């Protein structure tokens, strides 16, 4: 019995050794294949080699990234530039896979979190966070020095892309990681402010509440107040690093107003207007300033501000509604209804309405 048992163990051991050898060979092949794919990869495109990497399992991908990091560690200081170049190009390829080849309906790795798809304040379904963002970040952790300009460029670009794609759950993981490396970078601080300002919006608050009340899971969205407080801090820090960022100043003024700090908000918004804000940014600043003046009891100034916003975008509905409400609160029903008549005369088609308020929570 004992002999039989040991044979079995031996047999198992040899099978395992065989598998290990085979695995080692496969891993080496994958590492080589990965390097070929990185070299062939053209930013913003998905070539054959990149597609092949995208098809690997989560385990294979994670193992390969570990192998890459071990490999470049062996390069030594004299080949640091070569190592950095490989890591940066690798991160770029994984970011492109995440952006361009969605593999988010099935989980590739236990590390991938399930996230909610939201539309009009309602949960529409779930998907998984793409593993490739994490792979990209992991590769860049091996770049030396960690604050290499290429790393900063990658984090700025990918954070901006995530916000533009409204991949907010990914951005909520991505941006803190970026800020740990670049704590005072104005672009990353600004994007962090936009993310938390968006989390404070009615749409996201409604969605978070629906998710929580349905016991569907946890969300990364806190109360509007908490999110506004976070956004205010990020915008303030972004402005400290880059005082001439007009959009950051407009948004800073907006969150100050939402936090009830109307006098400070009005100062920030006036500074943005006087500083040369134009187009949509000027419209937002005027609209927000009107609200602050209203809250401060300066009705005439509020009206002037709303009217200027309306003149910038004559087919926008928000200044008309603001003027209507301002008149109604002053007890002038006729004037309030006149604004409604103007609203009724606007095109019904939203494409012709052109109200930049609707785009405010999307990063520009």
């Amino acid at each position, binding site marked *: 019995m004992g002999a039989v048992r040991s044979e079995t163990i031996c047999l198992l051991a040899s099978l395992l050794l065989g598998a290990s050898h085979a695995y080692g060979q496969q891993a080496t092949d994958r590492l080589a294949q990965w390097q070929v794919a990185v070299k062939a990869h053209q930013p913003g495109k998905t070539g054959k080699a990149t597609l092949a990497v995208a098809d690997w399992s989560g385990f294979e991908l994670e193992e390969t990234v570990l192998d890459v990091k071990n490999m470049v560690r062996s390069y030594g200081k004299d080949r640091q530039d070569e190592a950095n170049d490989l890591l940066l190009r690798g991160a770029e390829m994984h970011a492109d896979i995440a952006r361009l080849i969605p593999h988010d309906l099935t989980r590739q790795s236990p590390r991938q979190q399930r996230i909610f798809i939201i*539309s*009009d*304040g*309602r949960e529409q379904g779930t998907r998984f966070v793409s593993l490739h963002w994490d792979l990209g970040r992991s590769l860049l952790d091996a770049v030396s020095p960690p604050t290499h300009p290429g790393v900063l460029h990658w984090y700025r670009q990918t954070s901006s892309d995530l916000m533009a794609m409204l991949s907010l759950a990914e951005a909520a993981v991505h941006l803190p990681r970026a800020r740990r490396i670049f704590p005072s970078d104005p672009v990353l601080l600004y994007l962090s402010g936009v993310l938390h300002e968006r989390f404070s*919006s*009615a*749409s996201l608050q*409604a969605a978070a*509440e*629906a998710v929580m*009340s349905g016991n569907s899971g946890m969300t990364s969205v806190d109360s509007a107040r908490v999110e506004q407080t976070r956004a205010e801090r990020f915008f303030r820090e972004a402005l400290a690093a880059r005082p001439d960022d007009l959009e950051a100043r407009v948004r800073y003024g907006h969150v100050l107003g939402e936090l009830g700090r109307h006098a400070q908000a009005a100062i920030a918004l006036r500074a943005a207007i006087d500083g040369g804000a134009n187009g949509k940014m000027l419209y937002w600043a005027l*609209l927000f300033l009107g609200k602050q003046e209203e809250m401060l009891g300066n009705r005439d100034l509020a009206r002037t501000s709303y009217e200027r916003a309306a003149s910038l975008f004559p087919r926008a*509905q*928000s200044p008309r*509604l*603001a003027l*209507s*409400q301002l008149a*109604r*609160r*002053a*007890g002038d*029903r006729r004037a*309030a*209804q006149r604004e*409604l*008549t103007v*609203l*009724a005369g606007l095109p*019904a088609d*939203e494409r012709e*309405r052109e109200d930049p*308020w*609707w785009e405010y929570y999307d990063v520009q």
Partner: protein
Amino acid sequence: MGILRRPVVVAAVLLLGTLSVHAQFTSRIDAVRVDVLVTENGRPVPSLRPSDFEVLDNGVPQKIDLASFEKIPLNVVLALDMSASIQGLRLGHLQTAGRTLLGGLKEGDRAGLVTFSHVVSPDLSLTDNFDSVRAALDNAKGSGMTALIDASHAGMLMGEADAGRSLLLMFSDGVDTGSWLTAESVLETARRGDVVVYGVEIGGGRPGFTRQLSEATGGRLITIESTKDLSASFSAILEEFRMRYLISYSPEGVGTPGWHRLEVRVRGRGLTVRARPGYFAGS
């Protein structure tokens, strides 16, 4: 009967024309109108006289000039959610419900229509041409987000009129996700006017803005499980609204500006009274 009825309606309109100095337009409050639903075991109670009512304005009893029932024409504004989630069958149900409600309006009544997604479209001001409202309703399509608060403001303003009693019937299947105006500011507008808001929502969500608005105006919120029930809900609301009293009084012994707490009761009987909890006077 129709011939006899017309002079009564006209007289009521004329009478209201003189009475309907809205509380909020002058520093001195000339007259206050309060729309009141009186029920017993859930059924509206008719035939009450002004002397049956007791109104306290900021705790001070008031002398009621008029308590009118059923005779005053209605201004009915439909504010209908046309966001992306209202498509196909739901849109069909909504259009049918709108047509059903329009079919229940009588001579002298007027109707208006506000459709909204994130785009607020005050499609038709109050009109007695119900065919034009039907046509606008039939042309409505669903898309976009939900500017429920903005649409409420537009709907209430559309409903504010010198004559008649005004109902804003708001339908939405969701929460506000795109308004410029704030809930607080629109609730304040509601407290300044005399439009009664009845909300209809598809169930499931936490009671929110529409419930607050309904309660602030003396209306109520009806929650339905499916848009299949919409026509019945719209009809029930119109029927109930028609069975409300409009009482009017000239305030005496109360301060003018600011919030006025209202209490409306029916003397000596255990009846249920629904009315706005107060009104806001002055700017």
